[in-house]
């Protein structure tokens, strides 16, 4: 059994999303969905065995068939991407609302036998009033299993500006997936030391930026404040969690007096509050190292499979966790997501 926790549905054409927007947004120019910086050298939707991936991912019945029938997936969660940090917050939320309407109408109704897609509610957490309204609007639609926000941010996600949004998420038991979004917007440098030169650097390092959000959520006591608040880091980089969390744990006792509102080591929040989507770019290359590394990095606690179809990062379930034993494979391919999202 396999759950694919990260598939990116695409618009059929540029105009499609505008059909779901009222004025004045309908006639407001909107940036392209792709990354302006660091385009994937061989194309954003270049998958080796699937030359038609871009087409399939923009057609609900084709995608249904590809995912549930050909690839044998049992449950799939769609994470539509928007445009990242648009400078006009109202415009940004209008894009989110349109995306959610488009997803619900075009994608979440399509069935393949009894299987259908689950969805994510996009919001811009920089606009808490509208974000909370949008969460409330969709909260009772059980086809939506999470909230989606960009990895890009103007302040790390533990910051007190976001609390109302996280409170609404926790209230409705909706985890929040944090995933790189858009890429022609008002983002900061992708690294703490400026712009990378190469796509290779971006691909290697950008997912590791989860660290900043995680450190912030821990330091600002968000997990203590909202026991039911959970996040998923959607870009991968799970392997970096271990060395980063060790360092956080080590720095905790010396510095906790600056943040005296909780008494837990950072690592103690992971089981309950933090998950990662897998990436084909993570993992030891040597098969023999896999078991030792799993013993250290404990993927069974926090890792869930996501194919990232139809992007260049795509990894099919058959290739994922190849070196893991059967029990661990099943946990990562199915059980963790099933438990976390409360899927049957």
């Amino acid at each position: 059994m396999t759950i694919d926790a990260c598939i990116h549905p695409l618009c059929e054409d540029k105009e499609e999303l505008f059909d779901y927007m009222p004025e004045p947004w309908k006639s407001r120019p909107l940036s392209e969905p792709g990354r302006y910086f660091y385009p994937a050298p061989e194309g954003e939707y270049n998958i080796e065995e699937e030359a038609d991936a871009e087409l399939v991912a923009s057609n609900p019945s084709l995608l249904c068939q590809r995912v549930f029938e050909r690839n044998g997936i049992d449950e799939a969660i769609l994470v539509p991407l928007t445009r990242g940090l648009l400078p006009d917050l109202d415009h940004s939320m209008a894009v989110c609302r349109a995306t959610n309407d488009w997803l619900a109408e075009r994608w979440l109704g399509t069935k393949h036998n009894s299987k259908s897609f689950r969805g994510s509610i996009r919001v811009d957490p920089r606009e808490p009033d509208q974000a909370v309204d949008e969460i409330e609007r969709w909260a009772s639609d059980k086809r939506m299993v999470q909230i989606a926000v960009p990895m890009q941010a103007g302040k790390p996600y533990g910051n007190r500006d976001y609390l109302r949004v996280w409170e609404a998420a926790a209230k409705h038991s909706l985890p929040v997936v944090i995933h790189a979004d858009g890429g022609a917007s008002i983002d900061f440098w992708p690294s703490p030391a400026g712009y990378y030169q190469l796509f290779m650097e971006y691909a290697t390092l950008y997912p590791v930026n989860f660290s900043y959000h995680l450190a912030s959520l821990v330091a600002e006591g968000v997990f203590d404040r909202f026991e039911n608040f959970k996040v998923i880091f959607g870009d991968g980089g799970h392997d970096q969690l271990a060395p980063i969390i060790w360092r956080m744990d080590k720095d905790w006792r010396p510095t906790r007096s600056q943040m005296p509102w909780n008494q837990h080591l950072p690592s103690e929040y992971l089981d309950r509050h933090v998950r990662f989507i897998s990436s084909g770019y993570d993992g030891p290359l040597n098969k023999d190292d896999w078991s030792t590394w799993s013993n250290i990095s404990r993927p069974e606690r926090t890792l869930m499979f996501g194919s990232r179809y139809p992007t260049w990062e795509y990894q099919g379930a058959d290739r994922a966790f190849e070196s893991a034993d059967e029990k661990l494979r099943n946990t990562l391919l199915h059980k963790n997501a099933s438990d976390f999202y409360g899927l049957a």
Partner: protein
Amino acid sequence: MLDAVSQLHDVCAVDELSPGQTKIIEVNGRSIGVFNVKGTFYAMNNLCPHAGAPLCLGRVTGTPVADNPYSVSWDREGEIVRCPWHSWEFDIATGKTLAGPRKSVRTYAVHQENGRLYIDLRGAR
């Protein structure tokens, strides 16, 4: 009278260790710190369980407390010692870290008799 079976070590005259002060003594190859916390005396090994720092040389202070994020107040002034190296906070009375999982340093009972302070080398109370 002091119990003859105990291993009592004479530290100093009571009035040689004022409130807020720490005295370091060497006994049988062990370095031990003796504290006066607002008139009550405590003693612990001068060796941080983390990485071996001379714990009792650290600053004696209080600690910030908060029921909720961002509303911080100051408490327990003079009851906490912060390791001079990595600043771990230890409760002087119990020898335990404030933050969990609790780590602890060995403590010793301190007795007063005839105006003098004695620590009981048998160990933790």
